[in-house]
């Protein structure tokens, strides 16, 4: 990389970000060693007793741990897949809308939910899915018995994934829309002249045009396989659906901050981070191979 003197102000501008990163992400990393201790705040890291892998052994003996790891991965994978496909379909459809004004309007409206907080949405969805909520009223019209969605381990994962997709698909579609605009219009003209129908054009021009974007987003999302979105689940779940919705992060929160078992919570978090790290590396390798995406 070539350096110029007038790069300095850029470097200054990045300083707060680096300080933030160091303070909240890098420094705390050293404290992860408390996962191997019986950590007592009063004695600190240096004064607490070392217990090796005991926390991890205990973690794997817990009846809940298998469930929370499964839930985390299950929900995260479903979300990743849904969040790839739905925005893509939406972007493709929107791309076909020829009225520019209408297209912009739709695009703006569907990405608004991205900016709402889960605290608020959880309350709204509770009403929507409650016994006398809209969904159950609709069910009633068709003579279906009301369902307690929030209390049902069958429905709850679907609600978690569905609401997450609803909130994010508009925002995620932006990348696809950008990729779609990047496709050379000449290709469509050529296809048109060759007598390709709109569907054929979609298949042979549009999809190949966004293929690299899809692959890139897909592989990068791998790093999120252990992240099922604490914000959302913490605000929406209840003890009845722990079985299907308790994830690593909510568990760590309850064990660490409510029950004050710092070491155990750290062990869970560290374990999660290690797996996430491996997945991030894998996704990076895959992304650089298939989509020619490189950071370094």
């Amino acid at each position: 990389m070539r350096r110029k003197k007038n790069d300095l102000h850029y470097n200054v501008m990045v300083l707060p970000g680096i300080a933030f990163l160091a303070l909240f992400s890098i420094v705390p990393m050293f404290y992860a060693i408390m996962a191997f201790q019986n950590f007592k705040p009063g004695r600190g890291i240096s004064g607490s007793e070392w217990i090796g892998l005991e926390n991890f052994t205990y973690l794997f003996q817990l009846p809940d741990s298998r469930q929370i790891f499964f839930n985390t991965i299950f929900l995260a994978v479903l979300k990743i897949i849904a969040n790839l496909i739905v925005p893509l379909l939406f972007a493709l459809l929107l791309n076909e809308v020829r009225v520019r004004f209408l297209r912009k309007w739709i695009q703006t409206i569907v990405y608004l939910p991205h900016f709402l907080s889960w605290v608020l949405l959880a309350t709204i969805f509770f009403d929507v899915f409650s016994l006398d909520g809209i969904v159950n009223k609709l069910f009633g019209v068709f003579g279906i018995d009301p369902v307690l969605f929030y209390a049902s381990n069958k429905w709850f994962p679907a609600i978690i994934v569905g609401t997450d997709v609803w909130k994010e698909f508009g925002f995620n579609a932006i990348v696809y829309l950008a990729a779609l605009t990047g496709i050379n219009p000449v290709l469509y003209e050529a296809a048109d002249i060759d007598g390709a129908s709109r569907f054929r054009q979609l298949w042979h021009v549009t999809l190949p045009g966004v293929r690299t974007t899809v692959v890139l987003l897909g592989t990068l999302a791998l790093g999120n396989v252990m992240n099922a979105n604490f914000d959302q689940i913490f605000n929406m779940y209840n003890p009845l659906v722990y079985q299907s919705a308790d994830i690593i992060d909510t568990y760590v929160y309850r064990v660490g901050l409510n029950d004050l078992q710092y070491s155990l919570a750290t062990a869970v978090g560290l374990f999660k981070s290690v797996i996430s790290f491996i997945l991030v590396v894998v996704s990076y390798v895959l992304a650089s191979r298939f989509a020619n995406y490189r950071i370094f």
Partner: protein
Amino acid sequence: MKAKLLLTALTLSVALTACGDNGGNGNQSSDSNAGTSNEQTSGGNASGNTKSGDDLAYEKTAEPVTLSIGFKIPDDKLKSGDTNENNIASRYFEGLTNIKVVHSWEAKGDDAFKQKVNLAIASNDLPDAMVVDRNQLRKLIDNDMIEDLSDSYEKYGSKLIKDIYDTTDGMALADATSDGKLYGLPNVGIEADAPSLLWIRQDWLDKLKLPAPKTMDDLEKIAKAFVEQDPDGNGKADTVGLEGDKAVVYGQKPNPNGFDAIFGAFHAFPKNWIKDASGNIVYGSTTPENKEALAKLAEWYKNGLIDKQFALYKETQEPIVANKTGLFFGPWWMPYFPLADSVTNDTKADWKAYAAPLDADGKFVTHMAPVTDRYIVVRKGYDHPEAAVKMLNVFTRYERRQDPNTEEVKKLDDYAAETGVHIRNFYPFDLLLDYSDAVVKRYNDVQKAIKGEIDPATFDPDTKQVYDFTLAEKENPKKNMDAWKPAKAYEVGGAILANQPMEKVYSVFYGMTRTMETKWATLEKLEIETFLKIIVGDLPVSAFDDFVAQWKKLGGDQITKEVTEAVNGK
């Protein structure tokens, strides 16, 4: 949660029985005339060269001392110019003691306060003193983060607080003691908070011409009628039966919607350590009686007699406030919260409480609450641990109406009367030492005064207030909700506590043991999930037996052994 917050705010009604029945208990610091504890003013036990007893307890510190605390922000609106940190109460106590209280941090509401304390513990950044709960105390002792207060308490504790602690037969102090060292100054709670009564919309009951409930079957009939017969008369099937909470039972001090009374009627005492028929100590959630209670609840849930969504509400009081339910369990103070909100939303609402359901022999059975559940602790290394003791001395003396500085006390009382501010919410520590029968005593006094048997002029300010509000409420029902709250809480809740014979079951153990520290969270989660799932029908009732087996295997047996040792070792 708001309910818990209100429980605290509640103390406004609960306080101040002026003259105690704390007779007969001598204590180290003083003399034999313990019959009344009003002799603080005389300082009569200061003989000899060195100061001792109450002279030392109430003495100003020679040098100004700074005491930093964590403060729980109340709802009260102070006069402009005053702050949570610098107000009429804080200035008075600082003037008395020469101890300046500064707030390291403040938090609003019980949950936020608890989180702040947890955070302070986790980051090893404690204020000089603060109020903690039982688990936090345990953690602090374990981590060697707090001062041994034995000497400070011995030397500087006032006769009054020692007397009150003595009324608990040493249980309160023992609770905060570990290895013979006193690590916290505990509160002394009132007994009245433990029983969970059945609260009913009397206007609905009358409308449907149903008799007052006594048995489990009565309750079932009422629930059924409330669901099916449109008690609110709006032509829509929008009312539910019995309300519940996702915690199922509270076990010690209940909040609204616990099923504690149902379990009690089956002689099951979940979340309490009790002695079984053969004298062995068992965990109350694992006894076979629970299965009967769960079977009953599951049957009711299945038949729609319990609100189908009870486990889903973020705030348990929602259906009560919205007047969707006319049937729930809660302690005597329900009129303060959430019932006042229910009545504000529907002035026709007329709530009554019953000691129901009764057990098979016609008795009302309830678990009790621990004598103490919070503690003032002092950070290890703080130079003036006695400052916390002295603060407790002065505000407890004021709280118990034994403060000899009549002029200043009058000023505080006038201020409180004028602004509606509760002085006690601005004590440095949200921790009261009360006589355990305060509610019943106040109810009886007010009733006697209404009948003209005693002169209300002799009442302490809080009893007087309840008396005044009761009269005001009689004259103008539901005009002034601030009058309605105490009037109803005492007239309805207090009456039952005073008149209904109850079979009270005390827990034998409230603390934590070694194994509990690592395993209890898992066991509790297993318990709550099993109970909930059985009630809503996700699991059959027989799953209770699997739960017990699993509970024992996952550390329950070991913990039971430790608890037995702890109890027998005392």
